[in-house]
């Protein structure tokens, strides 16, 4: 099996643990964005450029941005 794939898979798994254990949601938005980027790289090596493209757009930009904005709203209130 391709070393590149093994490396990408391992990085994704590690990043997932980091995301789950980042308790502060504002920081989690950042780790989630990195996780999304690693996933996109994994999809690229898995011969899925279409999925990688949308993963970059959605997973590294839109979702973390929405989390940031949600956190800002909730924090602003407390």
């Amino acid at each position, binding site marked *: 099996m391709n070393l590149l794939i093994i490396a990408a898979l391992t990085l994704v*798994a590690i990043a997932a643990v980091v*995301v*789950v254990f980042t*308790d502060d949601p504002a920081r989690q938005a950042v780790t989630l964005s990195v*996780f999304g980027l690693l996933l996109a790289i994994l999809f690229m090596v898995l*011969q899925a450029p279409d999925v990688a493209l949308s*993963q970059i757009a959605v997973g590294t930009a839109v979702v973390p941005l929405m989390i940031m904005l*949600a956190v800002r709203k*909730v924090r602003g209130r407390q």
Partner: protein
Amino acid sequence: MNVYPYLVAVFLLVIGAFGIARSHNLIHAVGCLSVAQAGTYVLLLAVGYQHGAGAPVFGSPASTPTRNVSDPFVQAMALTDVVVSATVTALLLALSVQIGKRHGTVDPDELSALQG
């Protein structure tokens, strides 16, 4: 090594769910939910991968279509899934924002309105 990608997929699904179970913050829980969902993408794409094949796109007019490409259906499913996840995440975040507004907290341990 032939099953490592599948095991990583299962791991992502379960660790994401674990994140929700231990979460102190609903926004954090929604983030963990998207980790769990990433497990399904990885599983799908791993199922469709083929050693030595290319992406299922015959880019230039010159390139001749061949069957030596990875499975396009799992990619179509994963693509659908990515968009669904983003929008459902938006919906759940919107609900979390409202919970924060109405309860003054987004810690599930402190929400006690729906007991019994």
